[in-house]
């Protein structure tokens, strides 16, 4: 006897009419979800994931034209009833809790609002219930949090409050749009645990939009893969992730750098970009990017059952398990030995930020000088980077990794410490030659490229500035740079808004390379990109290292990316490096307890949510006061006792070049079991 599904959507199409013709955001999307089950929704940005969620809520935006054979929630037609159901029986959790909470309202008022509105509770009852909800989602001291404003909470607490709001009226369906993307990995793990518990204990059905396949694997029963508004593959999550059939799904999986695989050589990016959604393509719309495309792919494709799932590809069976071209010819690279001669040596770098301004304050009826609070963003950090070496720097937001990246370029002055580059000391106001040889690639290509400069202007300026080339020679140099980042020469006349995110980031890299540097700081250089584009940029960076012998300080919060690219890894926590060593040393025991927690928090594809062992940290990095002892002690699951709070941890050396700052004896650190499944 088939139970009536909680959510049943048949042939949903969504169009946004525009001056250039209607944008077809969704075309014939069908999905069905039962109570207590979780369906994942994946695809690149622009594939229509968020449009689908907003359409289900009845909020597809102004001018949207919605068309569906059926769109039912528990037997009710969502096209008419969505407004009455949302907030009551359908809850919604947005990506960025920082912007989804109203800054001018207390947390309690925001959680209680739907209760008062939908359940006709009295204000006081609703606030009491809000406190209970906040406790349920794991917020301590909920009674005081009820009266707090969003800016007083950390990111993880805000997302818990958003989830509490969505849960207020005990909805049967929860729509989650990238619920952990804005959060740190240890906090993300806490939120995923919470969602998992809600599903098990309350039987809430969930539709989870995510670009992170590890999260999908950890939480989802079913999976729908969207490409440019169409479902290309649909079925059980475990089946799809273990053996994807559609070339697009296979491409997505092959493009992800994975923490548990270590250095696997080249990733397989999906070439090209999304098709123009204003031009309907009756055939397979993935075929311009597909390695297996044939002329017959131009015929309309149906979503057909195959191997226990639905696939929209008539070639899926014929292609079978033929390897993706990008993956085939990729033997692991020969063990490259970066030269031992250090290129950059940082010694005891320290930077303190003042929070607020000094001023006068009334204290006890008397005027007193108020000293501003101080934050040690970078505290006594020493490391080196050898020629042709990639040093990965990982850590959670606010740990000081970007500050450190700017300090080693002297873009930000240090309060103390020394810096040597190629044997020479670098002063606070470095010589032009240092600026030429040490460059930076920023995270966000939208804000780091001048919108009023063409590519050519952006690339020519460093050539002129450092006196490297002018006239026709500069022209040739611009061409060479574009070729280096695999862009055609025709791009020189383009402005930033005429390029995609991945193309802009390549220009950012080309600009950094224009002065022929030896050392480049990559500050979250691939974090804003889709996996397919990220794979291409990562391949490019590793090729450039091999071709030009570049050294990188590669800053990222994504352990998969770091594990893929880095020769050595430094783990940073609250301004200090707690562990540093070769990639193999850091990614396998002995671990610093923080490294262990960080690695075990990474959701991995293929583990099916059955990760052997999880170390969960409570709270987040910002909640720790500065003390004399180990800064990780308040959150450390392996804390010994008082000594951790009062005495700075000694540096242990399990192997040459591998340093761990921890009070635990080496034998204990070495006995920690691997945290990454099959560690690299």
């Amino acid at each position, binding site marked *: 006897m088939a139970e009536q599904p909680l959510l049943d959507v048949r042939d949903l199409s969504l169009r946004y009419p525009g001056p250039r013709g209607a944008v077809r955001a969704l075309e014939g999307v069908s999905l069905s979800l039962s109570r207590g089950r979780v369906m994942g929704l994946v695809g690149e940005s622009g594939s229509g994931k968020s449009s689908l969620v907003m359409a289900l809520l009845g909020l597809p935006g102004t001018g949207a034209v919605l068309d569906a054979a059926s769109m039912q929630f528990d037997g009710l037609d969502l096209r008419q009833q969505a407004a009455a159901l949302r907030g009551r029986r359908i809850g919604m959790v947005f990506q960025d809790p920082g*912007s989804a909470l109203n800054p001018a*309202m207390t947390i309690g008022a925001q959680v209680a*609002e*739907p209760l008062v509105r939908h359940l006709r509770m009295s204000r006081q009852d609703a606030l009491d219930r809000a406190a209970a909800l906040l406790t349920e989602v794991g917020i301590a001291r909920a009674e005081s949090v009820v009266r707090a404003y969003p800016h007083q909470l950390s990111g993880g607490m805000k997302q818990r409050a958003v989830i509490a709001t969505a849960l207020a009226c005990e909805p049967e369906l929860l729509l989650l749009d990238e619920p952990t993307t804005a959060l740190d990995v240890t906090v993300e793990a806490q939120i995923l645990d919470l969602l998992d518990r809600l599903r098990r204990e309350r039987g809430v059905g969930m539709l989870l939009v995510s670009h992170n396949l590890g999260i999908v694997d950890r939480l989802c029963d079913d999976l729908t893969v969207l490409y440019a508004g169409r479902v290309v593959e649909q079925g059980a999550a475990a089946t799809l992730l273990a053996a994807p059939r559609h070339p697009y799904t296979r491409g997505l999986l092959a493009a992800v750098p994975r923490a548990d695989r270590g250095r696997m050589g080249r990733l397989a990016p999906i070439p090209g970009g999304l098709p123009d959604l204003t031009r309907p393509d009756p055939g397979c719309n993935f075929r311009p990017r597909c390695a297996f495309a044939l002329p017959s792919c131009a015929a309309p494709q149906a979503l057909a059952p195959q191997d226990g799932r639905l696939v929209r590809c008539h070639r899926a069976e014929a292609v079978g398990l033929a390897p993706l071209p990008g993956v085939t010819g990729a033997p692991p690279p020969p063990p490259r030995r970066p030269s031992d001669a250090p290129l950059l040596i940082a010694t005891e770098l320290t930077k303190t930020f003042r929070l607020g301004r000094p001023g006068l304050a009334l204290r006890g009826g008397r005027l007193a000088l108020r000293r501003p609070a101080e934050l040690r963003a970078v505290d006594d950090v020493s490391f080196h980077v050898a020629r042709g070496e990639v040093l990965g720097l990982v850590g959670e937001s606010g740990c000081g990794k970007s500050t450190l990246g700017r300090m080693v370029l002297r873009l930000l002055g240090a309060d103390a410490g020394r810096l040597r580059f190629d044997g020479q000391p670098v002063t606070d106001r470095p010589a032009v030659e240092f600026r030429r040889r040490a460059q930076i690639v920023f995270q966000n290509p939208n804000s780091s490229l001048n919108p009023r400069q063409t590519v050519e202007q952006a690339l020519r300026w460093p050539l002129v500035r450092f006196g490297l080339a002018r006239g026709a020679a500069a022209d040739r140099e611009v061409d060479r740079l574009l070729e280096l980042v695999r862009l055609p020469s025709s791009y020189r006349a383009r402005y930033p808004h005429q390029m995609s995110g991945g193309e802009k980031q390549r220009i950012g890299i080309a600009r950094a390379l224009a002065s022929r540097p030896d050392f480049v700081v990559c500050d979250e250089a691939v974090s804003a990109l889709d996996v397919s584009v990220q794979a291409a940029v990562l391949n490019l960076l590793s090729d450039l290292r091999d071709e030009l012998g570049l050294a990188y300080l590669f800053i990222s919060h994504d352990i998969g990316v770091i594990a893929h690219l880095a020769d050595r890894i430094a783990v940073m926590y609250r301004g200090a490096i707690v562990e540093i060593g070769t990639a193999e040393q850091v990614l396998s025991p002995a671990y610093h307890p923080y490294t262990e927690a960080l690695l075990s928090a990474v959701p991995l594809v293929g583990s099916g949510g059955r990760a052997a062992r999880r170390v969960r940290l409570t709270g987040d990095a910002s909640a720790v006061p500065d003390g004399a002892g180990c800064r990780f002690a308040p959150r450390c699951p392996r804390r010994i006792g008082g000594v951790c709070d009062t005495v700075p941890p000694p540096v242990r050396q399990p192997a040459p070049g591998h340093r761990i700052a921890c009070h635990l004896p080496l034998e204990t650190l070495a006995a920690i079991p691997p945290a990454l499944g099959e560690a690299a």
Partner: protein
Amino acid sequence: MAGFVGRRLLSVVAIVWAMTVLVFGIVHLLPGSVAHMILGEFATADAIATLERRLGLNDPLWLQYWRWFSALLRGDFGLSLTMDRPAGPLILEALGRSAILAGISIVLVALLGMALGIHSAVKRGSVEDQVLTIAQYVFIAIPEFFWCILAILLFASWLGWLPATGYTPMGEGGVLRWASHLVLPVATLALGLTAHVSRMVRSSMLEALDSHYVLAARAKGMPERVVLWRHALPNALLPAITVLAIDVGLLIGGIVVAETVFSYPGLGRLLIYAIENQDLPLMMGGMIVVTAAYALANLVADLLYALLNPRIRYGGAA
């Protein structure tokens, strides 16, 4: 919050004090002698020297400043040179009449500006919004003296509905006559500023309506009315308050113009009179009072801002 109010009050005091130094400095650096001004063009050198001694004009500048400043602290603005009466009561009386003008105008600007701004934001892109937008730019672009003259021509000379100039105290001609003298100056003062404020409210309201927390409120199933008034408006008002405080400065400038054109006996006209007749005590006193009024208006705006913005009220992250 108490510390915040205390700090802001301190800064108001500091600003007014700095203004006394500035006003005193400028006046005393100007060419020409005070005694010369008082005695007129044909005074003998001897008479001037005697008067300078009597007024203490030969004392060091800091002593003269201290004398003026300490008198100011006691509420003594000195003697008006041209009217031969204490400047304090003159300024106070004019200030009262200007305050009526300014007060009514600013309340009108705030209410009308917000109402129009919210309306165009909610009806974004509609014909109403487009007409309002054009009108707003017209009123922002054309200075108020143009509207003053146009208003006099239209309502006073041609239609004869309202008096063009002057002022009648409420006690003399009744409320209606008193009010009839206020209509034209208030209307011309408020027009340009209303356009300015409504423009700002519109854009900050649009920003709030496009925000994620408004989307989140809709996803919570809140009706549009609640989304608008409880979620969007309080956040949209913050920048509007800042703009209003800045506009108080524009308003003070506008009052000088409007009072002159409409011959309204307020502080603006008194200042112009003092400048034209080089009546230094009157001029200095008037300027200090204007500064203090502006600083206090900004203080009120700051406090209002803090009241609406929990980030200021409750400091940084917990």
